[in-house]
């Protein structure tokens, strides 16, 4: 008869750890890159070790009892013990004490990360849309989408809300998530501490393309950030007359695009992401695809086929017109 061997189960995590090796893990919560994420990671690590201790001790006792006291012929009938008051008190107090060691740092971290940055912080407003992100920098008068650029080392105050249903803004390397709830503004604050590109995504189920509501955060050196700001603040590029891009602009201006998209000086739509500087983004459609001609072409022709439920319908732009629009969009650095 097979015997119960729960002591094998600790081997499992080991095996899995082996499997898990590799990958750059762009969305890992275990590689904090901001003060907020760092504090959270520290807290989690300490709770994790407490949990491991409890796990080892309690599972150990369980396994020991099951093995040591299994039925063997000739063993006398067990003594009918009904309880033991001192033991009961002991194993009520012990977890309570451990919990104090978990709760105190927890409370401390709650207040330390309560979402308030110093007044000098860079202010960013994040607005969730089905299924893309809008970012506003009120002090810099910048509006952009899906790719969030931040300077390294400077505190950021993020205010989060939604234009439709509930989303959740999450860039794990920079900190925990915060829901974007319509009619309600929440905040997080953090200071990115290393330059890099961090991926994240919407974490609250928000409908058909919840899985495709991704985002990227670009933490830039200060000079690079300033350059980025200047580019964003400049008016949208005006293509030279007669060029392919100029034709693209005209097609764009005559198409339904203008009903949904903003391009400074061309259109004022607000349903979709602003395209004034779309050429400067590395990805389109909320981090789903590289921002290159083939993907743009497929996207404009039939967005819902690339992204289920996408609120940008199929566009009757094709052939040379399409090529021109793409060229135009790509010129909007």
């Amino acid at each position, binding site marked *: 008869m097979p015997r119960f061997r729960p002591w094998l189960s600790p081997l499992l995590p080991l095996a899995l750890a082996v499997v898990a090796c590799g990958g750059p893990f762009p969305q890992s919560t275990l590689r904090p890159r901001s003060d907020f994420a760092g504090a959270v990671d520290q807290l989690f690590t300490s709770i994790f070790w407490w949990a491991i201790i409890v796990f080892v001790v309690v599972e150990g006792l369980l396994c020991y009892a099951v093995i040591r006291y299994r039925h063997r012929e000739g063993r006398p009938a067990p003594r009918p013990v009904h309880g033991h008051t001192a033991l009961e008190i002991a194993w009520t107090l012990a977890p309570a004490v451990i919990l104090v060691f978990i709760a105190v740092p927890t409370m401390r971290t709650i*207040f330390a990360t*309560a*979402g*308030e940055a110093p007044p000098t912080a860079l202010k960013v407003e994040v607005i969730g849309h089905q299924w893309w992100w809008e970012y506003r920098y009120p002090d810099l008068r910048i509006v952009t989408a899906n790719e969030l650029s931040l300077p390294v080392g400077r505190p950021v105050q993020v205010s989060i*809300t939604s234009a439709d249903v509930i989303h959740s803004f999450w860039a794990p390397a920079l900190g925990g998530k915060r829901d974007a709830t319509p*009619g*309600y*503004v*929440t*905040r997080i604050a953090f200071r990115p501490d290393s330059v890099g590109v961090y991926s994240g995504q919407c974490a609250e189920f928000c409908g058909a393309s919840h899985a495709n509501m991704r985002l990227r955060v670009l933490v830039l050196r200060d000079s690079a950030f300033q350059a980025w700001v200047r580019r964003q603040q400049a008016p949208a590029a005006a293509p030279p007359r007669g060029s392919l891009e100029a034709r693209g602009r005209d097609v764009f201006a005559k198409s339904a695009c203008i009903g949904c998209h903003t391009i400074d000086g061309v259109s004022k739509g607000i349903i979709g992401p602003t395209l004034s500087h779309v050429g400067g983004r590395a990805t389109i459609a909320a981090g789903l695809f590289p921002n290159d001609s083939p993907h743009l072409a497929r996207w404009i022709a039939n967005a819902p086929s690339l992204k289920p439920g996408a609120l940008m319908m199929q566009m009757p732009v094709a052939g040379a017109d399409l090529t021109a629009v793409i060229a135009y969009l790509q010129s909007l650095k």
Partner: protein
Amino acid sequence: MPEAGEHAHPTVGTYLRVAAILVILTVLEVGVFYVPAFHVVLVPTLLALSAVKFALVVLFYMHLRMDSRFFSFLFGGPFLLAVVVLVALLFLFFGHFTLRGAAGGGGAGG
């Protein structure tokens, strides 16, 4: 009142007296509502008055006063739970205890 079994019910006289008090309290409630002088203490007064009415009906008309204590528990437990939940929800939605205003008190404002 002496120990009484499940079926000992108050007399018709008690019922009538309770009804009289209930009517008086209701008149008071409406009265308080209309007298401007009371407006500072309107809410506590009204809450107190309706609590008394509530208690009277439950204790006498629903016989909890003389029925088994267990019925009081079956009713009182969930009732208290409902009250605690209500108060907790009001705190969560209106309380201004979000230090440093992180989330605007949980209200729908924002």
